[in-house]
């Protein structure tokens, strides 16, 4: 049963068990008995009638009053009994509030985000919040059956206990050693409170105590949301705007939804806002908001740039910290710019192959949680790449169609004098027809490039290639004049999207190849590219507004992908368009994820000058090829960069013998059960989600046989937005929440409010039971008195 929402329903109060109030109809029983009794009597002939009549005349009015009184008493007994079972209570606004028992239903909503770790005096804000919670607890009385609910919230709200006793509440409080390393999401916490506690639990006029630092960033949108309605004629009344946002639609601004939730909360409870900071800024706080490397992976011996972004609040002009790269520690000093930001850089050349852990940590300040950030950097000797040449020219790869590409990947190709030089890519060229002659071993390469290849042999090459991609490999397809579209469609495209080719190719290339000797009309009106997904790592270089201009080289001829008859392109769910043709929007570069691997499809010939100026536009060709290959080689970078609470999920081609994870601080956890069977060729470990502390988590896996052990790092970082410690002061809160019914308390709860809570409502069932007993006694006495009246 969903109980009636409480005091808001009735001005006088409400019932805990409204259904039982129906038993009040039992009052009809005494009435019926009374009426029946009037019709049931014994007839007695009586001689001394004149004395009886005289007595009746004398007692008639008194008798009527006595009968009425008894009848009322008897009717009141079932009504009061039914009421006692229905458990009425009276809200603070009720005119009958005075007769209610002073039972309190206290809900503590505790901000558990990491900004509550901020030091204040000898403790932290979080400790202050716990102390205030205990003060509230001290003001409650168990003999009154006061109950407590504890809801804590970081990114996720957590209902620690619901309408519980004091011991449970105290136990839960004691278990809260420190805040979570998470950003606080007040809106979700309020949702949970409204939906799971206030809607589903029967709580008599609850008091909600929100203990938080009231960060301004939580309410930044709120301020905007309050200003916004002026532009919206339908929302000129704030209430309308708030209500619409609060009707379950979370599409509106955070402001609208927060105000709506808080208003709803204020209407259904006595809302106390305890601002533990009351707007006070910390003297100084700096936070590491980002840590990244110039490349997504490092090559042994190749220097790369590590950049830490720091933001400070306060007046400090400079700061200091240190990089820790593996076991190497590098102190750094830096200066803040006028906006209080600093970009701290360090160049580093990695010497050891394998995963490298990078940490940047500031000198500790008022809020220690945001002083560090972590990065996992995979280090390789080089990236072996297989280039399948679609138009080989004799024995010299440089003379073939892939020659230009080869020099981009390895400028020192075939230079015997530079054999010892460190290379980023280590290309191997193979003519396309050689692939079908021997069973190709794609697994040796981090990426494979098919350059203008006529077709992919179906018997041996295609199955191997598909297995390679599904196992995590990356393949780049450059489509040129040699490509036989029909064959490719037949062998690589599948209607359900599981083929390597995401969309069917058209019947033939579009446009006319430009011939510099004869000239062409298409040169005056070439096709051009535009970015469809500017955040895609395969075009990382071009995310910059200036650099995206480099992609505007002219295109004369390209392979079209087949659109749907009704227009548009039916991409598989794991595919997305990265580059498209300007104007028509036709896909030019498609990223298609297949299994654990990826394919990139560029519908241009990267080698044929007649098709486009791509190969001749060094500013586009070089970075785009490198970005695409780095993206393909890195496979799945997101798997190793996790938010707080993110799950570490890994699978291996061989069954692991043992596996363990070492958390920050050196606590290791061994996986109890190894996977028993491979799923789609991978032996998957049980997901590890205990990543509540930021830092580097090391996964070590041992295998039987010749399989080399795996040592991988996972970087877990907190959300830096919570580092903004600007907090709202009283005036700001009152102004922003002007329409929300609440009481504001600065820093701590006043003693009288915590202990007495003057405006409370309570149940009266005990009093009703007492009244019932009194009525029963009274009825007995009066019935005896009226019935055996002696003169």
């Amino acid at each position, binding site marked *: 049963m969903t109980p009636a929402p409480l005091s808001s329903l009735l001005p006088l109060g409400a019932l805990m068990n409204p259904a039982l109030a129906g038993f009040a109809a039992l009052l009809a029983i005494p009435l019926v008995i009374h009426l029946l*009794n009037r019709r*049931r009597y*014994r*007839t007695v*002939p009586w001689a001394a009638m004149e004395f009886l009549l005289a*007595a009746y005349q004398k007692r008639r009015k008194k008798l009527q009053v006595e009968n009425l009184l008894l009848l009322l008493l008897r009717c009141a007994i079932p009504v009061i009994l039914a009421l006692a079972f229905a458990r009425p209570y009276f809200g603070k606004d009720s005119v009958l509030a005075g007769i209610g028992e002073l039972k309190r239903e206290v809900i503590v909503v505790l901000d558990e985000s990491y900004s509550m770790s901020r030091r204040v005096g000898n403790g932290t804000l979080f400790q202050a919040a716990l102390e205030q919670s205990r003060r509230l607890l001290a003001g409650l009385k168990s003999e009154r059956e006061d109950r407590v609910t504890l809801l804590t919230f970081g990114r996720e709200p957590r209902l620690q206990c619901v309408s519980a006793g004091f011991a449970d509440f105290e136990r839960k409080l004691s278990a809260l050693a420190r805040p979570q390393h998470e950003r606080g999401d007040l809106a979700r916490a309020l949702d949970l409170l409204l939906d799971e506690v206030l809607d589903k639990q029967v709580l008599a006029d609850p008091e909600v105590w929100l203990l938080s630092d009231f960060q301004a960033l939580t309410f930044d949108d709120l301020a905007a949301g309050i200003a916004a309605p002026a532009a919206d004629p339908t929302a000129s009344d704030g209430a309308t705007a708030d209500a619409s946002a609060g009707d379950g639609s979370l599409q509106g601004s955070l402001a609208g939804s927060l105000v709506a939730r808080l208003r709803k909360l204020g209407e259904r409870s006595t809302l106390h806002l305890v601002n533990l900071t009351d707007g006070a800024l910390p003297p100084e706080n700096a936070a590491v908001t980002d840590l990244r490397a110039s490349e997504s992976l490092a090559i042994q011996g190749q220097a790369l740039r590590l950049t830490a972004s720091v933001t400070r609040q306060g007046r400090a002009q400079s700061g200091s910290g240190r990089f820790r790269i593996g076991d190497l520690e590098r102190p750094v000093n830096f200066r803040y710019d006028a906006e209080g930001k600093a970009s701290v850089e360090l160049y580093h050349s990695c010497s050891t192959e394998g995963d490298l852990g990078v940490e940047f940590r500031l000198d500790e300040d008022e809020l220690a949680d945001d002083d560090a950030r972590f990065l996992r950097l995979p280090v390789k000797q080089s990236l072996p790449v297989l280039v399948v040449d679609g138009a080989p020219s004799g024995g010299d790869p440089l003379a073939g169609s892939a020659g230009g590409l080869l020099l981009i990947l390895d400028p020192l190709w075939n230079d015997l004098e530079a054999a010892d030089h460190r290379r980023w890519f280590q290309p191997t060229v193979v003519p396309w027809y050689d692939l079908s002659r021997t069973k190709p071993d794609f697994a040796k390469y981090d990426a494979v490039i098919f350059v203008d290849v006529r077709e992919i042999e179906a018997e041996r090459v295609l199955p191997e290639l598909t297995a390679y991609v599904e196992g995590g490999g990356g393949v780049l397809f450059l489509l040129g004049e040699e490509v036989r579209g029909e064959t490719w469609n037949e062998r690589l495209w599948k209607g359900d999207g599981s083929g390597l080719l995401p969309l069917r190719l058209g019947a033939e290339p579009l446009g006319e190849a430009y011939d510099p000797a004869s000239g062409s009309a298409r040169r005056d009106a070439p096709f051009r590219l535009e970015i469809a997904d500017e955040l895609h790592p395969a075009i990382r270089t071009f995310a910059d507004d200036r650099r995206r201009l480099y992609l505007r080289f002219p295109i004369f001829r390209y392979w079209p992908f087949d659109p749907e008859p009704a227009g548009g392109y039916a991409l598989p769910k794991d595919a997305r368009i990265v580059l498209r043709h300007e104007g028509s929007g036709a896909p030019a570069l498609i990223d298609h994820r297949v299994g654990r691997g990826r394919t990139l499809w560029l519908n241009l010939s990267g080698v044929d000058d007649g098709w486009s100026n791509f190969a001749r536009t060094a500013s586009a060709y070089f970075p785009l090829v490198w970005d695409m290959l780095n993206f393909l080689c890195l496979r799945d970078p997101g798997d190793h960069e996790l938010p707080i609470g993110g799950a570490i999920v890994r699978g291996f081609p061989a069954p692991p013998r043992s596996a363990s994870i070492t958390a920050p601080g050196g606590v290791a956890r061994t996986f109890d059960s190894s996977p028993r069977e491979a799923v789609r060729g991978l032996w998957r470990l049980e997901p590890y989600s205990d990543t509540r502390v930021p830092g580097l988590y090391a996964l070590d896996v041992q295998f039987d046989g010749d399989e080399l052990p795996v040592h991988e790092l996972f970087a877990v970082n907190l959300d830096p937005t919570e580092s903004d410690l600007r907090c709202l002061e009283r005036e700001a809160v009152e102004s922003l929440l002007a329409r929300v019914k609440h009481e504001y308390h600065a820093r701590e709860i006043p003693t009288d409010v915590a202990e007495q809570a003057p405006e409370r409502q309570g149940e009266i069932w005990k009093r009703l039971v007492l009244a019932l007993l009194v009525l029963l006694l009274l009825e007995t006495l009066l019935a005896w008195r*009226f*019935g055996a009246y002696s003169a």
Partner: protein
Amino acid sequence: MADSRRYLDPKVVDRLGRLEVKARLIVEGFLQGSHRSPYRGASVEFAEHREYVPGDDLRHLDWKVYGRNDRYYVKQYEEETNLRCLIALDTSGSMRFPEGFDTTRYQYGTLLAAALAHLLIRQRDAAGIALFDTQVHHFVEPHTSPAHLQSIFRTLESGPRPPETRTSLLPVLADLAERTHRRSLIVLISDFFAPVEETLRGLARLRTRKHDVLLLQLLMPEELTFEFSRNTLYKFVGLEGAGELIVDPRAMKGEYLAALEQFRRDLKRGCLKEKIDFESIDTSTSLDVPLTAILSRRARKAARR
């Protein structure tokens, strides 16, 4: 002989057959309990001997007879008839109360009147009977003859009047005063549920004629206690057409008993004022109580002579 006393219980007697038998049994039961024979009169003219029975006054034992034949005899004297008694019995509707029960007020009154008449005639007193409601509708002159007793019994057995028959004592008492010329003892047996002033005015007329008047008010136990079973309403239907009332008796008991008591007090006070004897009799009591009252009155009267 001990069994004879149980005939003083009206419920027992009521189960017997003829009124004559009832009256005789009552009288014998009554006499058995006395230590002094009520036959002792003021006259000393010897009449006969009678064998001694327990209860006879030992002073009247004839010791000479005992000396002669060793048997106990008491001497009996031929007393003069020095008492005329008219028994007036109410036969109005209220005397049928409580209808449907063992003994109604009328039956009790009949037994009492019959026993009294039997007793008086047995003592050579003159006894007569009058039945009345709003008027005297049966009247038998007092006489000493034992055969007269049958006439009294027949009159008594004529039964009560219908329930709606009212009582009107003033004309009845006036009529009795007119009919009774010689000074007599007039025993009025009724509930006297009539206006007290009217009753007293009628009695005053009797007293004016020098009659000795005895009022025997018969009240049923239900009337005296007003006890009814609980949790039930009662519809009281007034006899003599006194109306109806549905009421919880428990709620009315106090006021009712007070009103009844006030009525009895007023009637008794009025009787005292007129030097009239008044005896209120609970009909659940044995019949010797009213008989004793009557005989002691006769004795007092004889003593005065």
